[in-house]
Every structure is written in structure tokens, then in C-alpha cells.
């Protein structure tokens, strides 16, 4: 298989890596860049555990061929927090007990960020539909939805 040298920006850092052409961006992020936040739950775009934001668009990194990332700007779960502060979504997930096993959490956080970037004041229904591409088997979604709504409030009205 051919290999391609990919240069891109991940969480604000300029990075580059060498990848087999048919490899998924998910595997490249995890294996080449050590960014293990995105998980493979299905590999077919059905569970959202590998969600990232690439060039401003929420996507499943398992459906992206790694060479597609050349020149792209990517945000993963690892890029949400600053050095000294969690993103309000992360803080609200913690305080709202929105995670149990935690395997889906990075994907939910990224999907929720993509939602709030577009729609800072979503209804419960909008949150539920925006997160429909992320599967969680532990929580029944209740505390996740509540935590996203709470984070939206906090982002709209910073302390």
C-alpha cells in the first residue's frame, strides 16, 4: 500500500505523519499521533465514538481516509481544555455524572461542542437529535442531555 506524508493542524499544533493511504484518520490519530481520545466503537460511522471536528465540521474519523486530513485543521477531545481549565462541557459532564464507563464520552463532548458552536441555546429536542449519532449504552442519555444543556447556559452566561 502506498504511504502518504500528511501535514495538518491538530488541536492548534502543526503536526505531520506518514500513513498508509487506506488507513483511517482515526487510526492515524491514535497510532501515529498518540491521541487516544477518539475511540473505535464500530468503524462504520454508526456510533460516533471517533467523532472529531475537521475544518469546522463534525465527522466520524473512522470514515475519513488519513490522507484526506492533509492541510486540514482538526479538533479532538484532547483539544477541548486549556492548560489550566476544562471546557464547560467537560466540567458539566463531570458534575452531572454524564459518564459511566466513559468510552463514548470524548465523542459526545466533540459532538456537543459542534452543536453549541452552531446553536448556543438548543432545546432538549435539538440536543437529542444533534447527539443521535453518538451511542451511549450506559447512561440512557438523560444525564448527558442535561449536562449539555447546563454547559450551554454556562457558555452563554460566563461567570
Amino acid at each position, binding site marked *: 500500500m502506498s504511504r502518504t506524508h500528511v501535514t495538518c493542524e491538530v488541536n492548534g499544533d502543526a503536526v505531520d505523519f506518514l500513513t498508509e*493511504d487506506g488507513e483511517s484518520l482515526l487510526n492515524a490519530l491514535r497510532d501515529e499521533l498518540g491521541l487516544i481520545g477518539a475511540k473505535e466503537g464500530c468503524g462504520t460511522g454508526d456510533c460516533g465514538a471517533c467523532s472529531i471536528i475537521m475544518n469546522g465540521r*463534525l*465527522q*466520524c474519523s473512522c470514515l475519513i481516509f488519513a*490522507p484526506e486530513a492533509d492541510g486540514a485543521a482538526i479538533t479532538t477531545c484532547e483539544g477541548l481544555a486549556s492548560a489550566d481549565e476544562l471546557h464547560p462541557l467537560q466540567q458539566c459532564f463531570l458534575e452531572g455524572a454524564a459518564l459511566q464507563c466513559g468510552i463514548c464520552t470524548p465523542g459526545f463532548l466533540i*459532538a456537543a461542542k*459542534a452543536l453549541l458552536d452552531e446553536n448556543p441555546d438548543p432545546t432538549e429536542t435539538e440536543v437529542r*437529535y444533534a447527539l443521535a*449519532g453518538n451511542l451511549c449504552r450506559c447512561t440512557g442519555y438523560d444525564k448527558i442531555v442535561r449536562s449539555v444543556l447546563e454547559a450551554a447556559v454556562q457558555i452563554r452566561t460566563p461567570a
Partner: protein
Amino acid sequence: MRYAAPTTIDEARALLAGDAGAIVFAGATDVVPQMRGGRPEPSMLIDLKKIDRLMSVSLDGDTWHVGAAAPSSALTANAAFAAEFPGLTEAAGLIGSDQIQNRSSLGGNLCNASPAADSVPALVVNDAIAVIAGSDGERRVPVADVVTGPGQTSLAHDEIVVCFELARPAARTSDAYLRLIPRTEMDIAVVGAGVRITLDGDGAVSAATVALGAVAPTVVRVPAAEAALVGSRLDDDALAAAADAASDACNPIDDKRGTISYRRQVAGVLTRRAAGIAADRIRTRNGQTSNEERAS
């Protein structure tokens, strides 16, 4: 396996022509799962997303051009397009999650040639034309003629769907698309129904198109349902006749997603409901127009 991202259609076609094992893709939302499911690995992956014309959504005179590789979200985010083709926009917006809609494209949805493709019935009822680039230049083909069977199209190996042409809808015209899925999101349609209606000044149907998905090997246009609607005021009898015609037009299979009898029954229900929604949209729009006129 090699990855290529040509920036022109000619370049993409040349790559295709030079490699019998090459495939083109936009979102890969079908390609990747199929490869995991055992589809033979292509020798080359040709990414169409770097070709501007395939990514643009634009109104040129009275014709909309929708790039074949443009993501569904480019349609749902385009207020002008969505206002004129609410049904087609809904269909594009029903394909998978937000994550999927940021990658899935109308071209991919068509060329994957699944009988259950959501956008195809919605394209067909709007008389969409597929613009296909091939060795003899471009040809223009009604969308309904592109897919010849499950997983099969009339495209030659080195042909690429460039864009879809959609004439702006006539006055007092709207469309709707409904599908039945067991969950609220993330499923493949068990039945899909697209309807476009034109009402005359008196509120009677002057034109109608009806197309069904997931009920036959390819999308099914239903002239009998259209005939039942035309001339009517969408009264219960006309809607019931259209529903029956839609049910009769089905040639479905029993599979893991639904049964023959279920698909038949629900095809009629969705046709009736979609016709009602399309008509409501016309009435609402005209009502809003007149309100605006009053205000001004």
C-alpha cells in the same frame, strides 16, 4: 491502495480510466462500511472533494446546480435551497447523523445504488437531472435512469456524476419526503416516499409526482398515484386512492428491515402523508406571502 485527490474532473477521469480497480468517493460513508464488510479493496481511492464544481451548490438563472460531492449539510444549511426544495433537503438531512451529513453526498447516495437511498425519491419527484462527465464530454440523464438495480448504475467505469440540475419549482409547488425507520435517527429507510405537488389558484392539484424508495430494486415512480392526486383537492378519497396506488406499485422483498406486506401498507401511508405535507407547505407559503404583502 493509493489515495488521490484530483482538483479537476478531467484529472479524476484520467485516474479512473487508467485503473480498472479505482473508485471515486466523496464521504465514503458507504465505501468504508462496505470495505469492512468484505468488499474487495479498490486499488485507488479517488477523492472528489477537492473539485470545486462537485462541491458547490448554486443557483444559475432558473436552475439549481448541486455538486455531486457536496455534503448533505451544505443543503440543509442553504436556506434559499431549502425553501425551494424542502422535501429534498429533508431527505438529505435524514441520511445518518450530523457526523454523516457532513460527509454524505447526493452523488454518493445515488451511485451507491441502494434501493433505500433517501435522497433519490426526492430527486426523482423534482425531475432532477444528473450531469455525468465521461469520455464524450458531459451527458444529462434523469436521476431515475442512473440506477439500474441494487448496487448497479448505468455509469461507465470512467464516468463521474458531476452535479444535479434542478429547475426552480413552479409557482405554488412544493415537495415532501417521508421515510419510516424504527428509531428516530440512524436507520436505513424501511420505506421512503417523495411527493411533489403543484396547486392551481383554486387549490386543486394541477401537477403531482410521486416516487417511492426501498420498495423495489430501484426507485419507483408511481403514475397512478400521481393521476389520483391531479385534479383533486387532496380530499380523503383522492389521498386514499393515491395511497392505494402507491401500495400497488410496490415490489418489495422481505428482509431484516421489513416485510413485504409492511412495506406495501406503509408506502401508501407515507405517500398520503407526504402529499398532505407538500400541500400544506404551498398553502402556508402562499399564506405567508399574502401576509407579507398585506404588511407592505
